[in-house]
């Protein structure tokens, strides 16, 4: 079982490493979107400090969503996905490993970059770890929930826009809790409540999403 998980994760990471540009695209998108906001709303430091958590979170949401499109697409194209559907191992397990690998390549870079972007917005130094932690807990939820949408829209025309319509409403709680954690910390309330709720949501999603992704993949690959 563990060998299978390791093999799937290794394969996905290796494939991603061979196409490093794809990872760079997601990260660059994230940075550019975040950097556009001060240009739009003006360089007033107090305003930027207030909106920083929201903006970084929204940008992370969009970046995660964009990266989802190619989560199953190339495997669907070359037939590797069919082999996974036929494999003796439970599909939900394979899917879990793939989601984890996908998060390592699309979610984790955003988490690591977030303190740098926080400096851009002059976020108080003690808030930066809260932001990073909230992203660390929240981005896997985005990947797992989004993967359901990616599996459902597999191979459809206009898949990208469709995916956005399906998953963005489902991302609302993560956005609220994630950005809310930083807001609560900056208001001196402590971010424990939001972070614990995010962690709870991560556990629930990690339990049920792989199963839903597997069902969705079987429907789409029929």
């Amino acid at each position: 079982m563990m060998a299978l998980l390791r093999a799937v994760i290794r394969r996905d990471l290796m494939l991603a490493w061979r196409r490093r540009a794809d990872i760079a695209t997601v990260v660059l998108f994230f940075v550019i979107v975040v950097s556009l906001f001060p240009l739009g709303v003006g360089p007033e430091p107090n305003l930027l400090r207030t909106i920083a958590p929201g903006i970084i979170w929204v940008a992370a949401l969009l970046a995660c969503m964009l990266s989802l499109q190619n989560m199953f697409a190339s495997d669907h194209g070359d037939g590797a996905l069919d082999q996974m559907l036929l494999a003796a191992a439970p599909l939900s397990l394979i899917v879990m490993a793939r989601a984890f690998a996908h998060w390592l390549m699309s979610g984790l870079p955003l988490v690591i970059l977030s303190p740098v972007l926080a400096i851009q917005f002059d976020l108080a130094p003690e808030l930066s770890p809260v932001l990073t932690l909230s992203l660390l807990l929240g981005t896997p939820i985005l990947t797992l929930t989004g993967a359901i949408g990616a599996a459902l829209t597999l191979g459809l025309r206009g898949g990208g826009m469709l995916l956005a319509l399906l998953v963005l409403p489902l991302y609302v709680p993560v956005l609220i809790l994630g950005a809310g954690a930083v807001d609560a910390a900056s208001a001196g309330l402590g971010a424990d409540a939001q972070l614990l709720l995010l962690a709870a949501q991560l556990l629930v999603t990690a339990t049920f999403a792989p199963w839903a992704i597997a069902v969705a993949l079987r429907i789409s690959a029929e």
Partner: protein
Amino acid sequence: MLNQPVLLAGGINIFKYASPQAFYPLAGKMLPWFGWAAALLCLAGLYTGFFVAPTDHQQGESYRIIFIHVPAAWMSMLIYVVMAFWAGVGLIFNTRLSHMMVSALVPTGALFTFVALWTGALWGKPTWGTWWVWDARLTSELILLFLYFGFMTLQAGIDDARRADRAGAVLALVGVINIPIIYFSVKWWNTLHQGASVSLTSAPTMAATMFTGMMLMALAAWMYTIATALHRVRSIIIEREQGAEWLKNHND
């Protein structure tokens, strides 16, 4: 599938009507009843609401939009749950009719959600002085509208009817699990940022006629939903069963 047919107390096999062929004429027979019930209840409800119910001492006449607003909001949420129920039935028992029922319910659900938001804005302007506030209920209703739209675009984007049915069913179930999470997170978000400037919960105690009018309208909304769903499901059956022998021989 189950080996034994599920029998109701009267000995009627409920799976009999799970086949589009058996359900089509039944839906045709029920349709006028629900349609007329919707029309009559709506007339009675509107009459009670606009002519019998007293003027509100705080809000004046503008409160009367409640007779459309509240039933629409109730229906918008209920329909999503009913949809998810049929989606689950469809996935478990693999009954095509359940999936057709889901597709038939969605447009009505989206319509009621839109009506609830629209009338809410019209009501908000005279009473709160603004078309829109980021109140928890308004925001979650808006997200519900997005969920309906997402469902419709997903089904529209898939050409194969069977895949569209099943993909939509998964989405409906994922959505229904998320709705309470969305509602509570939005509610919390709102109270976190600012105390709710307007509270919808502390409505003034209602006169009996107001309550009657609202209940009549709510019943009308139920009947309307059932009638439109039956009508739409018949259209879907005709569309899907094109060329089936029984449909050719069926004339009504």
